[in-house]
């Protein structure tokens, strides 16, 4: 008697405790193994690129908050850098240092979220997530103190930053930076030798360096596969060329390496913030740009290293106040190019953990 089996389709739907946002996966499974996988996005598509074509460049900065809503400062920074290059605007030094401080604070907050949710996906009932959220709460409080918002900060402006941080910002930042290294060591100690965590993440979702580069992977996912590529070192913007930090690079390209790379990056971010706080000069916090900013006709591709990877803005200007074309190169979307190849053949829990390690934000995928 012959037996046959049919694959069944599991819909890890847009509402799910572990997909990071409204992200849908249709998975054809044979028992516990994934046979085919289809990714359906667009639940959060807000047509930002089209709307941006009828708003001025400054009016477009809040869009970048809402694209990658977990790294709003980096999004703002990318757009401001691109427009500054397009329009030839000089940024004062104090603004550059402030930009570095806030971008690195945002990196710590975002990595806390990414690593915490990864470990929650592996099953740890949100305990590490809540531990990492202690620091994230303090960082968000700092953001609120400075620009009024915790998540959608809208803080960078073309030519600098929007507001000078209030006087109580600096002692609070000093306190945070002093206690962060111990806290990060605490998280590292809790998780790096945990047998169950190792069993869930070692050897899972391995991406080789060639595949990563060819698949346009950037950010901690690329660095986890062993490729030492970081835009802060390769194409330094703000004052990164004057500050001294290192890039963590993984060895095997599995989920564990990506987790460790993010953990190390938070330590390096703390180092950067400390240096920036020590070296920051006095001065204006932004240059006065003309209110009616009409950049010369031309195009620019400006990019920053956001916590998720290379966040690029491709702007085409035709001399009018609004961009002719406003394209966000979203690292979350492009990092997903390899997901299908990784998922096929692995059991479902491994696919979930791999998706968590690539660290997507659906606002950025869909824009």
């Amino acid at each position, binding site marked *: 008697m012959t037996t046959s089996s049919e*694959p069944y389709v599991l819909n890890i739907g847009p509402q799910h405790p572990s997909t990071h946002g409204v992200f849908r996966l249709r998975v054809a499974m044979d028992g516990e193994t994934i046979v085919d996988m289809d990714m359906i996005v*667009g639940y959060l598509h807000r047509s930002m690129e*089209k709307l941006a074509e*009828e708003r001025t460049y400054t009016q477009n900065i809040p869009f970048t908050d809402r694209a990658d809503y977990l790294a709003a400062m980096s999004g703002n920074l990318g757009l401001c850098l691109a427009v500054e*290059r397009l329009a030839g605007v000089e940024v004062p030094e104090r603004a550059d240092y402030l930009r570095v401080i806030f971008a690195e604070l945002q990196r710590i907050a975002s990595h806390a979220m990414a690593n915490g949710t990864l470990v929650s996906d592996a099953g740890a009932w949100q305990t590490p997530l809540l531990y990492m959220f202690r620091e994230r709460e303090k960082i968000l409080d700092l953001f609120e103190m400075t620009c009024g918002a915790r998540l959608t900060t809208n803080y960078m402006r073309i030519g600098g930053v929007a507001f000078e941080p209030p006087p109580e910002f600096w002692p609070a930042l000093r306190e945070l930076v002093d206690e962060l290294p111990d806290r990060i060591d605490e998280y590292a100690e809790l998780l790096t030798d945990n047998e169950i965590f190792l069993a869930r993440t070692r050897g899972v979702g391995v991406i080789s360096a060639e595949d990563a580069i060819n698949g346009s992977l950037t950010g901690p996912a690329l660095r986890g596969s062993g490729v030492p590529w970081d835009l802060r070192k390769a194409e330094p913007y703000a004052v990164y060329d004057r500050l001294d930090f290192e890039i963590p690079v993984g060895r095997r390209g599995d989920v564990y390496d990506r987790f460790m790379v993010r953990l190390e990056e938070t330590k390096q971010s703390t180092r950067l913030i400390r240096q920036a706080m020590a070296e920051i000069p006095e001065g204006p916090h932004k240059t006065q740009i003309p209110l*009616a900013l009409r950049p010369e006709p031309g195009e620019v591709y400006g990019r920053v290293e956001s916590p998720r990877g290379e966040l690029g803005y491709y702007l085409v200007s035709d001399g009018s*106040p609004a961009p002719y074309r406003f*394209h966000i190169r979203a690292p979350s979307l492009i990092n997903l190019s390899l997901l299908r190849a990784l998922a096929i053949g692995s059991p479902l829990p491994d696919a979930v953990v791999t998706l968590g390690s690539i660290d997507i934000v659906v606002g950025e995928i869909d824009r």
Partner: protein
Amino acid sequence: MPAGPTQLSGRRVAAALAAALPSAVVAEHDEWVEVRPERIVDALRWLHDAPDFDAAQLSNCCGVDRHDRFEVVYHLQSLDLNQQIVVKTTVADHERPSLPSAYAVYKGALLQEREIYDLMGIQFAGHPDLRRLFLWEGFPGYPLRKDFLGLGDTTPGLARFPFENKAQPDRIINPGLRPATPDPASQEAPPGWRGDARA
């Protein structure tokens, strides 16, 4: 000119490409090189393999609607040499634009080309799974095209800066343009979907 700090001169790239692939280069500029649409994949592959350029990664692949033609921009990145190359191609046909897919050279073009197809309507020949990405199957039209009207039949663009010369209209109202016809080729599942054993 607003070129990136590591961006290679377009003229140098154009000279090398013209030497290697004759008749591929159409135009050259300080910042980018423009390639014939049929030869774009060959050009990308040559740039990928050439040791001087070593364009290992496709950073960004983006489409621009220039009213009567489409432009597709490829930002290539060499990680070892730390340099950036910009390659453009122009698709003259505005009704049924089509390009060969860069998936053969760069796997990272998979989702970016789907996005361009979804929002601009450019077909990529040779793409393994060309379906709409953000919008649903059967959506009428391609939103990022300049003739896709916004709310109130406004065409994209800002004619005047807010607070400047309020007598002038800031949005362009042009009810003469009609939206494009619905897209005939739409699929529910990717080709070769192994979910249905019966298919």
